[in-house]
């Protein structure tokens, strides 16, 4: 990807710079609210970016991506409840369990195509939701409160607002970098090739199923990390995190920002969640505006915000 100056690159650069400098602004003005809001947004941007890897580049329309948010979160929450507070154990477990879940449901779901795939991933995520609701030992429907955030042997203090913010931001940038590397690697090119023509890739000798499945597992693992972050951010995890509307939210963020664009999900997450925040301050019935807005975006703004910006070139 040769970087060329255009409006979308400029916007991404400004947004990233603003994200890095935000704690400074927050500390000087004493505006803590914006820091907590942005921490949440960054975590969702990481989750949406991982969804973008399979949806935008791999052409796998997963409607169950929020399941990993819950699985990563529950891994942290359950271990914390059982007295294991070290992040060095909690986080690898969160990633590992997410990867395992992605492997199992991916292996089954990827046997299908198109709308079947959408519905099946949705159904599996719902299954995870019901299982979490039935975990009466760990709060069941009411969710599980995490009394102590993950500890990292004094390396980093997650209870410190600024340190936690930078950790989330580092995870986001790390995740996006990883996705960038994947997309431009041989592996990523094969996955994108399978998206545009599976039979042809198969014919040249690539085991399409295995490539897609690997990509699916990577995305699930990254989203599991977002789940671990989210649980630490809210000090709480509940089945609601993986309710199917959450998966819908993630999808909306990806589409809104621009599917198949590296920073699209970040922009989408910011716009979607800030809009939600603003609308819900303005009216209790924010979805009354958000719903039709989504419809209009789908009907009239294909390619999302990044697509719109991409059309504005200098000169």
């Amino acid at each position: 990807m040769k970087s060329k100056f255009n409006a979308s690159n400029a916007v991404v650069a400004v947004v990233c710079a603003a994200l890095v400098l935000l704690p400074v602004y927050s500390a000087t003005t004493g505006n803590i609210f914006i820091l907590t809001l942005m921490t949440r947004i960054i975590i969702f941007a990481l989750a949406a970016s991982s969804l973008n890897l399979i949806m935008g580049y791999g052409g796998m329309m997963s409607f169950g991506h929020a399941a990993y948010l819950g699985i990563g979160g529950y891994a942290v929450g359950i271990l914390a409840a059982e007295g294991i507070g070290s992040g060095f154990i909690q986080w690898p477990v969160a990633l590992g369990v997410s990867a395992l879940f992605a492997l199992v449901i991916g292996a089954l779901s990827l046997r299908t195509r198109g709308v079947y795939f959408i519905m099946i991933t949705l159904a599996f995520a719902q299954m995870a939701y019901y299982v979490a609701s039935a975990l009466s030992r760990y709060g069941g429907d009411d969710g599980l409160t995490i009394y102590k955030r993950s500890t990292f042997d004094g390396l980093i203090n997650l209870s410190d607002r600024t340190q936690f913010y930078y950790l989330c931001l580092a995870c986001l940038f790390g995740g996006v970098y990883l996705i960038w590397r994947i997309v431009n690697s041989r592996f990523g090119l094969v996955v994108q090739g399978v998206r545009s023509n599976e039979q042809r890739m198969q014919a040249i000798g690539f085991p399409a199923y295995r490539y897609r499945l690997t990509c699916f597992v990577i995305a699930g693992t990254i989203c599991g990390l977002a789940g671990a972050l989210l649980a630490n951010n809210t000090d709480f995890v509940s089945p609601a995190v993986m309710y199917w509307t959450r998966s819908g939210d993630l999808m909306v963020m990806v589409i809104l920002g621009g599917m198949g664009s590296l920073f699209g999900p970040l922009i989408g997450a910011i716009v979607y969640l800030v809009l939600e925040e603003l609308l819900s301050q303005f009216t209790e019935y924010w979805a009354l505006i958000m719903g039709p807005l989504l419809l209009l975006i789908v009907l009239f703004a294909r390619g999302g915000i990044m697509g719109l910006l991409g059309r504005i070139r200098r000169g």
Partner: protein
Amino acid sequence: MFLLIEQLLNGLQFGLLLFLLAAGLTLVFGIMDFVNLAHGSLYMMGAYFAATFVGWTGSFVFGAILALAATLLLGIALEFVALRHLYGRDHLDQVLATFGLILFFNDMVRLIWGPAGLALPLPTWLTTPVQLLPGVYYPAYRLSIIIVALLVAALLYLVVMRTRIGMLIRAGASNREMIGALGINIKLLFTLVFGLGAALAGLAGLMQAPILTVQIGMGENILILAFVIIVIGGIGSIRGAFLAAIFVGLIDTLGRAFLPDLLRKVLSGAAASTAAPALSSMLIYLLMAIVLVLRPEGLFPAAKR
């Protein structure tokens, strides 16, 4: 034994209800190639309309008929204003747009009817239990759901297989462009099919309303079940939807009723009471996974176009 019969009937009743919902979904998908997440919202609207109209008219049957008509009109209006612009678009676009509609409908209902659920009281002639066999009683209302749903299923079969409209619907499902080229007004046909699907969803909603509370989001969980049924039955196949719906209804109901006792025989009491609810809610998804492994296209895939 009586418990088993009762639970079998409950499962059948639930399955038939699911069929009403899944039939509309699979018709719309088979013919318009359109994924409609907002189908669950139409189910919810059917229940809310029924609760309101029964309150106004004071008659359960009359209110139900009005609610059915209202859901039909709502479906047609929805298709006319928004959804017809989405045919031929990517499935993902359709999912997102109808996801937006769910958000809209949920908040709309909250605005009009308030956040608390409504109750739909039954008339006394539907609350008395009916004696099916000597010593076996079953609630009259649940029995009437079974009868109505079976009648509707039969009617649907007759309409689709034996009438001109049904012939057009089947033709549309196998080749959209061709029936358009043959001079059939597909736009009208699509609107009709969508209205039919909406009415079926509304019927399911209003019949379920007296059993459960009428509440926001009631359509979402059951919509997922309808998806599972479509996937198991094969997309676009009404016959598949019918069999899969009854199967899912029975498995879900029987699983919830008997799995805890079965598990208690195998596992210790504490482990069983933890595992049983999780396992019984997973049961139909496991079933779907098995079907997918064996038959990725569903059990009764509609004919390839």
